[in-house]
């Protein structure tokens, strides 16, 4: 089954991206298309390259090869702040609030070069009820979950077209993570598209309309959560045996009750899929 959104043009398109950290190849041949209104989740273990991918899309890393295209415009050579004003806005890992600024000032900085759109500081206060009365506090005085909310608010007031969320759950209690992800529908309602990185796979599968799994800088699996069995996700996540090849091609023929999903990892026999080539 395919979502109706995918019939249009992708809002964000990453093609054949390769990124190096010095000598180390962090990402290799990564392609993905994010369509308007989607929640696109990138999953993978520690060091799989998820954050590198998101940071490259935001402009914080320069790719060796490959392109990042936003709504038909190549932004690969654009500086981070220019991408932000064009609508690629990231909530960075670890929240990265301005520590000497108040909650409200953090939001004001986010709104300084904002695109026009539905999100205002006022609207963020409505989304996070507690925030208004604590707007004059320094962010250092807030709990981790509250800080994460401010970080999301700071990104929202810029009125992004694509909101990049890097490891929202990091360092937060599960109940807090649940609460933050519960806000996602209200955010999507305003016409945003979300590309997120999440280590917590079950959380990602719950919220995402499309999942992309990375392993050691390569794509190991891509598809809609409904089409993926836990075993396949696990195999792609940990690199057990040979996971199904990436790309829509591998998914296209899969019927929902598909029998090819839950196959045990073959212990012998020549690997025959294209990912070995």
């Amino acid at each position, binding site marked *: 089954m395919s979502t109706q959104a995918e019939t249009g043009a992708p809002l964000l398109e990453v093609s054949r991206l390769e990124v190096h950290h010095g000598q180390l190849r962090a990402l290799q041949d990564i392609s993905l298309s994010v369509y308007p209104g989607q929640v696109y989740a990138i999953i993978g273990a520690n060091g799989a390259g998820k954050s590198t991918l998101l940071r490259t899309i935001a402009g914080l890393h320069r790719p060796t090869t490959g392109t990042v295209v936003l709504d038909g415009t190549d932004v690969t050579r654009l*500086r981070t702040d220019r991408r932000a004003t064009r609508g690629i806005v990231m909530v960075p890992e670890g929240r990265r609030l*301005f*520590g000497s*600024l108040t909650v409200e000032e953090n939001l004001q*900085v986010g709104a300084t*070069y904002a695109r026009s759109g539905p999100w205002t500081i006022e609207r963020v206060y409505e989304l996070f009820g507690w925030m208004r009365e604590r707007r004059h506090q320094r962010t250092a005085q807030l709990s981790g979950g509250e800080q994460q909310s401010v970080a999301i608010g700071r990104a929202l007031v810029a009125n992004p077209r694509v909101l990049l969320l890097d490891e929202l759950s990091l360092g937060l209690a599960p109940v807090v993570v649940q609460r933050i992800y519960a806000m996602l529908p209200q955010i999507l309602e305003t016409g945003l598209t979300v590309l997120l990185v999440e280590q917590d796979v079950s959380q990602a599968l719950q919220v995402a309309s499309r999942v992309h799994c990375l392993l050691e800088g390569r794509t190991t699996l891509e598809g809609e959560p409904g089409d993926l069995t836990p075993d396949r996700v696990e195999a792609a996540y940990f690199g057990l045996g040979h996971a199904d090849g990436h790309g829509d091609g591998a998914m296209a023929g899969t019927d929902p009750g598909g029998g090819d999903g839950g196959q045990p990892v073959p212990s012998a026999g020549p690997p025959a899929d294209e990912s070995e080539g």
Partner: protein
Amino acid sequence: MGWVNAIIQGVLTGGLYALFACGLSLMFGVMKVVNLAHGDLAVVAGYVAIGVITVTHIPVLWSFVIVVPVMAIFGYVLQRTLIQGALDRGPLTTLIVTFGLSVVIENALLQFFTANSRAIGTGLALVRESFHIGSQIQIPYLLLVIFAVAVIVLLGLQYFLSGSKYGRLIRAVADDQEAAQLAGVDYRHVFGIAAGIAFGTVALAGISYGMYSQLDPTTGTDTILLFAFAAVVIGGLGSLWGTLLGGVVLGVAQQIGAQINISDEVLAGYIVFLAVLVLRPQGLTTRRSQS
């Protein structure tokens, strides 16, 4: 009482030192640049003022109106080109580049203006006269005015940093450059604005110093940079009002030293500077935001 007079003189001189120090402190606080050419830029501003006054015959006070904005624009341009280029190559490079700038400025001044010292002649009675309290205390009007200007500049800076859009961006960029970029902020532009402000204040200080004392091509590194450094370190790095406190402590120490023995004036200031470095390296006022 000679001592009371010395302390009052010291406090007022501290205003001048604070004026020198606040730009140095701002540039370090925002972009982590230790501008070793800071003092020389003050001297340049003084010489430019002398030039402007000589050529145009405008009243001395009007030279501020011309020179301060010109230096501020120069600061923005220099930050966006030379200093940013150094920053992109690593924090130590800025030390080398600003040191080089200092050498270039000093030698250019020597080349074009000789080593003779110059004062900015104001022709104003204000500069030469003092008012007296009792028989012992005499306060030069000029020093009092400079102190007032320093306080006004610091108040203005504080108001700007806490209340304005660009002030907020400056603080945000100082906190986290990358996060600011993600919020759409061009941090290089914000750095340029901070440098513009720093250069504006140092121009103000340089012209004031030229009226109060004398300038020669080496005054910048001999005197101004060192006093500004001492004031910043004593007061606490990155703290605006700390620079005033640091300047005042330095000024008072110098005047007390001079009271003991006139040749001990400068030495006494540095003894306090060293004492603070040893006993309280974070400065007398620590930065507000420790998180």
